[in-house]
């Protein structure tokens, strides 16, 4: 703890270089004790590097310059390694994102937390052990004794994150730096972790929170600094920044947040794409896709059977979007794979356009495969790494007959235009594309055989907010232009709410609530739905 007079940390004109790359430019930040500064930006904005520079871990091949760099009253610019080590963990706690990789998979949780104490205190091993248990208790882990003896691999994402936090706050440092602390977590868990961090702050530590998600930080941050291309483009009190952003980029970020945006409202600036010739509005009302009482149980040797999905049924109407929301292990993806005919249901069936689908052998399904398209969370891994963009599309267009782009140059150009990709990309290898471009490519490929239905499995969860916005808009426009029906799967309630006409809320493999989107969410019946709603980050703009 530091006395309120001086700031928890202050940097002026921080610059970080990786060789020639100037990744952080003239960043100036100041953080008062007990308050929370959110550093918001998308991947590559330099926010993480900034955070690391603050604890002298920007990396071996980096050069850090700053006019001022004071942490808990110490000018750290001149610190030697030894002095830095004293500072880290004691005065500054650092919480990395993705606790799975941030905890040594080979060491027990207890030991990882104990390290902090071992390094900075003279406590006896037994005292330290006791303290470790207290800490685990404090971060809200049940049965600390058990947990301390477990490996990160044996804990759930939330628990891991808590454990990591425990190791960061072991010596309740004056400053806690949290880098994307909730990114990898389910909404409800994320909410809990955020509350935990908020709790710390109330105990007086200052907190620097790095995040890509304005909505997520809006409930904890006092001040917000928005970063883009290594610069802080706007900063100020959270309320103000969120209510009336000055910088265009901030506005774009805010606009991109699907939360609270009604269906069909654009989330991103005007598209650079050639709209498809609008089809006659879909008149038919017969369901394109019908699932009735699907069930799937996974058996593993020497382990209890795991009922992934039981008794799931739904109808997908033409031109509509059916959203499926739920957290990991809720059976969303299993359902999707059964619908796609990649997994045979133990019982129940899927029908496509009223005809049997899941019951058919693969050979029987093949003729109708073109009706059904799919896009995935990680498009890249769904591409053959040996094929260029053009080849991929040619392959899809020719239904596997050829991989020669020239044969289909016309349609390829069309598709690229349709999803807003430059024609020049046709020769590129997907690996060289950005996340957004990859997902657009995936959509283009899915559209190639002129499907009527698209299964979208977490299509945007790996993307930055603004990119996510673009993809969501794209999907929305395509749906209207081509009269597509979507089965849209996501763990992100606000995305689902923005995209769907109807929703299924799934938990533990069963549908806990379903119906038309707005009714369900404006008046949730099932406690789980309620929990999801309260957990899902809403913009807290004060009004």
């Amino acid at each position: 703890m530091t006395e309120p007079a001086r700031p928890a940390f202050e940097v002026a004109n921080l610059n970080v270089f990786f060789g020639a790359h100037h990744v952080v430019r003239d960043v100036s930040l100041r953080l008062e004790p007990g308050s929370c500064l959110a550093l918001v930006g998308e991947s590559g904005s330099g926010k993480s590097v900034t955070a690391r520079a603050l604890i002298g871990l920007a990396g071996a091949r980096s050069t850090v310059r700053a006019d001022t760099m004071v942490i808990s009253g110490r000018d750290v610019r001149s610190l030697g390694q030894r002095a830095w080590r004293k500072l880290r963990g004691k005065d500054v706690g650092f919480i990395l994102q993705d606790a799975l990789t941030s905890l040594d998979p080979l060491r027990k949780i207890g030991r990882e937390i104990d390290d902090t104490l071992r390094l900075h205190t003279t406590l006896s091993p037994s005292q330290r052990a006791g303290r470790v248990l207290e800490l685990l208790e404090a971060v809200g882990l049940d049965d600390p004794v058990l947990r301390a003896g477990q490996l990160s691999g044996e804990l759930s994402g939330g628990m891991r994150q808590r454990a990591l936090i425990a190791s960061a706050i072991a010596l309740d440092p004056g400053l806690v730096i949290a880098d994307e602390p909730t990114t990898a977590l389910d909404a409800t868990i994320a909410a809990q972790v955020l509350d935990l961090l908020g709790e710390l702050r109330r105990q007086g530590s200052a907190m620097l929170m790095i995040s890509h998600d304005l909505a997520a930080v809006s409930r904890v941050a006092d001040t917000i600094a928005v970063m883009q291309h290594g610069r802080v483009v706007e900063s100020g009190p959270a309320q103000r920044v969120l209510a009336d952003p000055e910088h265009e980029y901030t506005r774009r970020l805010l606009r991109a947040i699907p939360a609270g945006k009604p269906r069909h409202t654009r989330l991103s600036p005007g598209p650079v794409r050639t709209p498809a010739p609008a089809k006659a509005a879909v008149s038919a009302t017969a369901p394109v896709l019908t699932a009735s009482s699907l069930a799937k149980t996974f058996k593993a040797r020497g382990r209890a059977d795991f009922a992934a999905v039981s008794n799931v049924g739904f109808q997908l109407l033409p031109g509509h979007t059916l959203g499926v929301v739920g957290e990991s292990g809720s059976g969303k993806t299993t359902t999707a794979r059964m619908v796609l005919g990649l997994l045979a249901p133990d019982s129940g069936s899927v029908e496509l356009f009223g005809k049997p689908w899941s019951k058919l052998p693969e050979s029987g399904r093949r003729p109708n495969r073109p009706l059904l398209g799919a896009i995935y969370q990680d498009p890249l891994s769904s591409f053959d790494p040996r094929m260029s963009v053009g080849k991929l599309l040619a392959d899809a267009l020719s239904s596997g007959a050829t991989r020669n782009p020239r044969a289909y140059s016309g349609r390829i150009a069309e598709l690229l235009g349709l999803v807003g990709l430059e024609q020049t990309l046709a020769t590129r290898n997907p690996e060289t594309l950005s996340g957004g471009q990859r997902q657009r490519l995936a959509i283009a490929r899915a559209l190639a055989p002129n499907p009527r239905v698209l299964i979208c499995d977490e299509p945007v969860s790996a993307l930055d907010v603004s990119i996510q916005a673009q993809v969501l808009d794209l999907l929305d426009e395509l749906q209207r232009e081509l009269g597509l029906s979507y089965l849209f799967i996501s763990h992100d309630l606000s995305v689902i709410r923005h995209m769907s006409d109807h929703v299924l809320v799934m938990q533990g493999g069963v549908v806990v609530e379903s119906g038309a989107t707005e009714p369900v969410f404006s008046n949730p019946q099932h406690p789980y739905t309620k929990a999801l709603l309260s957990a899902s980050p809403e913009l807290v703009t004060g009004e």
Partner: protein
Amino acid sequence: MSITEHGISPENPVPGVHPPATLQPSTPRTPTGALTRWLRLAFPVLVLGFFALATIVPSWLAPFDPLAINPVDAFSPPGPGHLLGTDESGRDIYSRIIYGARPSLLIGAAATAIGLGLALVLGTVAGFGGRWLDAGVGRILEVLFALPGLLLALVFIALAGPGVGTTVVAVGLTTAPGYARLIRGQLVALRESPMVEAATVLGRSRAKILFTHLLPNALAPIAVLGTLGLGQAVVWAASLSFLGLGAPPPAPEWGAMLSAGRTYLSLAWWMTFFPGLAIVLVAAAATVLSRALNQGGEK
């Protein structure tokens, strides 16, 4: 990782369809820096290129006839006259090494080819044959593994009798299981990959997927394996020649040269040293190149 990723050499590439993207600037596995990068490619290319040339047109590189005996200047040490000295019959060591490239490398190449061929069959069967075939092949490989390297070769020679042909097959046999497990692992990894799902959803048949997506991707690292294997095979073959189970004289095969030279170790070290150096160079170059290829493949 586990033994399955490692055949004769732990440097075999581990199948990675795509490496995970990391947030911080990732540090490359092997040292960067212009010099080392240059070395990493120039060294193997130069060495292997040189010996490749020697294999094709030895007469361009060799100043002397490798078989021309000249008792008068037997055992002459390295010097201007004979770059790397002469052997007990006054034959020029350098020229013999040059001419020895062909038999040595051909034996290596043939052995590698056999090894890879065998591995390909076994690996594919295991990768696609379904659970039972997979298990069966796994057992076979287990057996081959249980007789490591020279032991398997020797047992095989004990049965088939010594000779160049036997050597080739023996070496091929010893190297096959490693490759096979690798190819299998590759295929299994690919089989589960979203790429296959996507293809299925696009309505591709099993066979089509196997031939257009799986095999080509699984075979990509074969080039890497091949280069690596070549180096290894040359060493194995040389070891067998050394044990007196190799190429007949006066063929200047490196292993044979070595085993001939070692008798005169105390008198003419160069007779042993330089052929050995040739082997080491080839093997090392092969390893370096395969690593480079592998990384190229992963990028």
